[in-house]
C-alpha cells in the first residue's frame, strides 16, 4: 500500500516516469537484442561502407559496412550489464560493510572507513583503468572495476544512515527484547536505510553506463567482437569528418540512457521522500 503511493508519486513526476519507461525499454532491448537486430552486428559488407541513414540501414553503416542500428542495439546489452553488475557489487559488499561499520563503531569502523577513504582518494577513471589493467582487459573485468569504485560511496551512505537509525528507540527496544547485533542490523537497520540507497543505486546505474563507455572508448572495456557504445565511439572518432552519423547514434544512446537514469533517480528520490524539495 505504501508501494502504491510511491508509484503514484513517481507517476506524477512526468520526466521520471518517461525515464522509467525508457529504462524498461532499454532493459527489454538488451535482453532480446540478439533476436531483434535486423542484421548481424558483426557482419561486414565492404560494398556498403559508411552509408548515411536510409530505409534499410536506419542509422547508416560503419567503415566495415556493418549496420550501426544493430550495433547500437547490441551495445545496449553491454551498457545494461555494466550498470547492473556495477550496482550489485556495492549493494552486496558496500552496504553491509557500511551497516556493520556504523552499527558496531569503534576499531572496525575506523579500519573500514580508512579503506574507504583510500579508495575514494583515487580519481575514479584512473582506478578503473588500474583495476582492469591488473585483472586483464575485458568487459567483465571493467564491470567489476566499476563496482569496486562505487563500493565506498555506498558504504559511506549506509554508514551515515545507520548512525542515525541506531539511536532510534525501536533499536533500543529490540536490544531489550534480547536481539543481537546481526538480528538488529538485518531486521531493523537495513529496512530503514534502504530508500536513500535505492536512490543512490539508480544514480550509480547511469554513472556506470558512462564509466563503462569511457573504459571501452579507451580500449579497456569490451573487446571486439563484443559491441559496446564506448567502443563504437572509439572507432567512429577517426571517421568523424567522413561519416559523422557513426558517432552520432552511439553518442545519443549514451546520452539518453544516462539522462534517463538521472531523471529516474531524481523522481525516485521525490517519490520516496516527498518532504525533500527537488533541487
Amino acid at each position, binding site marked *: 500500500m505504501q508501494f502504491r503511493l510511491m508509484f503514484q508519486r513517481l507517476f506524477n513526476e512526468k520526466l521520471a516516469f518517461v525515464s522509467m519507461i525508457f529504462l524498461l525499454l532499454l532493459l527489454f532491448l538488451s535482453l532480446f537484442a540478439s533476436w531483434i537486430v535486423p542484421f548481424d552486428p558483426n557482419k561486414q559488407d565492404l560494398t556498403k561502407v559508411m552509408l548515411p541513414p536510409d530505409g534499410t540501414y536506419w542509422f547508416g553503416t560503419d567503415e566495415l559496412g556493418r549496420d550501426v542500428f544493430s550495433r547500437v542495439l547490441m551495445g545496449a546489452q553491454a551498457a545494461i550489464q555494466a550498470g547492473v553488475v556495477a550496482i550489485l557489487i556495492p549493494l552486496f559488499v558496500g552496504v553491509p560493510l557500511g551497516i556493520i561499520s556504523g552499527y558496531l563503531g569503534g576499531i572496525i569502523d575506523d579500519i573500514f572507513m580508512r579503506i574507504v577513504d583510500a579508495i575514494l582518494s583515487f580519481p575514479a577513471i584512473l582506478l578503473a583503468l588500474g583495476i582492469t589493467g591488473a585483472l586483464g582487459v575485458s568487459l567483465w573485468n571493467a564491470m567489476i572495476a566499476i563496482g569496486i569504485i562505487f563500493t565506498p560511496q555506498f558504504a559511506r551512505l549506509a554508514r551515515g544512515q545507520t548512525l542515525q537509525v541506531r539511536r532510534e528507540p525501536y533499536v*533500543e527496544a529490540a536490544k531489550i*527484547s*534480547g536481539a543481537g547485533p546481526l538480528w538488529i542490523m538485518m531486521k531493523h537497520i537495513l529496512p*530503514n536505510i534502504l530508500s536513500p540507497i535505492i536512490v543512490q543505486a539508480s544514480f550509480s546505474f547511469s554513472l556506470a553506463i558512462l564509466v563503462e563507455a569511457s573504459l571501452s572508448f579507451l580500449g579497456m572495456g569490451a573487446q571486439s567482437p563484443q559491441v559496446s557504445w564506448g567502443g563504437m565511439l572509439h572507432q567512429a572518432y577517426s571517421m568523424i569528418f567522413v561519416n559523422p552519423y557513426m558517432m552520432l547514434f552511439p553518442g545519443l544512446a549514451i546520452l539518453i540512457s544516462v539522462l534517463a537514469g538521472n531523471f529516474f533517480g531524481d523522481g525516485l528520490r521525490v517519490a520516496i521522500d516527498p518532504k525533500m524539495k527537488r533541487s
Partner: protein
Amino acid sequence: MRGPNEPVLEVKNLCSYIPTSRGVIKPVNNISFSIGAGEIVALVGESGSGKSVTALSIMGLNSPSIKYEKDSVISFKGENLLKMKKRQMKKIRGNEISMIFQDPMSSLNPLHPIGKQIAEPIQLHQGVSYQKAKEIVVNLLAKVGIPDPENRLNDYPHQLSGGMRQRIMIAMALACNPSLLIADEPTTALDVTIQAQILNVMRDLQKDTGISILIITHDLGVVAEMADRVLVMYCGEIVEEGDVYSLFKNPQHPYTKGLLASVPKLRGASEKLLHTIPGAVPNPLELPKGCNFSGRCSYATEKCLTEAPNLVETGKDRRAACWHIVDLQTEEVTVHA
C-alpha cells in the same frame, strides 16, 4: 504473593562512574534496594538524578563509557548481572527482565507490522517461527486491551494512537512472561486520560501474572496510583525509601517533602503560587562536600554542609538520608496537632 521476603532483584552498593577530562561523574552513587516478587516499586526523582542509569544498569545496556565499582552487585534471582557474559545477558533481556519506554511513538519500528514486532522476543528466545508465535501474540493483544486482536496483527505503528502503541509495547515486554518489568516513564508522553488507562492495564497485568514492576517516573500521581514502595533519588543517591502510604503521609527527607509540596493542588490554587524547591541541582562535577541537598534545603545546618548523611533505618520499612529526620517529624506532629 506480595512481600519482600524473597527479592527478585537485589541491588547492592551500585556505584557507577564516568571518567571525563574534567573529573569523575557518578551518575549513580552507592545505592541499594530490592524488589520483592509481585511488588511494584517506584523510583522517583528529577531529570539527571540517575533513575534511567539505574534501569539501564539492570538491563546491561548502559553506554560502555559508564563503568561500575568493583563491589557493585545487581543480583537477579541470585545471579550477579554485572558479572554476566554478553551471551547470558542476551538470554535474560526480554525473557526474564523486560522494559518499556517513555515514547511509544518511536519505540516501534515503522516498517514492521505490530504482530511481527510483538513476536520478536518470542522468536528470539523460544526459537519458534512467526506462525507459531502468532497465537501467543493474539492472546497478548487481548490481554492489553486491544479490541479485535486477530485483525490488528498486520497493522503498522502509524495506524495506531499513542495509547494503543504503549499497549503494544507492554504486550511486547510481556511476551516471554518475564519476572521483572522496568517501566521508564511509561505514561509521560500520553494524554492524562490515556495515562490512567495504561496504568490500569499495567496494574491488572501485575495482578494476573504476579510480575514485579520497577516504575520510573517523576509523576507523583503515578506513584500514588501504582506503587507499593517508593525510592526517592537525588543526585545519584537514594535519599528516602518507604511504603507509599507512610511516605506520602509523612515524608522524612526535606527533598521528598519539597516534591510533595510542589504537586499542584486543586483547592486553593488561585490564592498561592505553586511551591517550588529553591535553587537548582548541583553540577555533578562539583557536588557539595556534605549533603547533596544542603544548598537547597531550608533545614540545612553547619553539619549538613560538611558531613554527608547516610541512609539509615528510620522506622518500619523506612529509610532516609538526612540529619534532620527528627525535626521533620516533630514539625509533622505540630501540623497535625
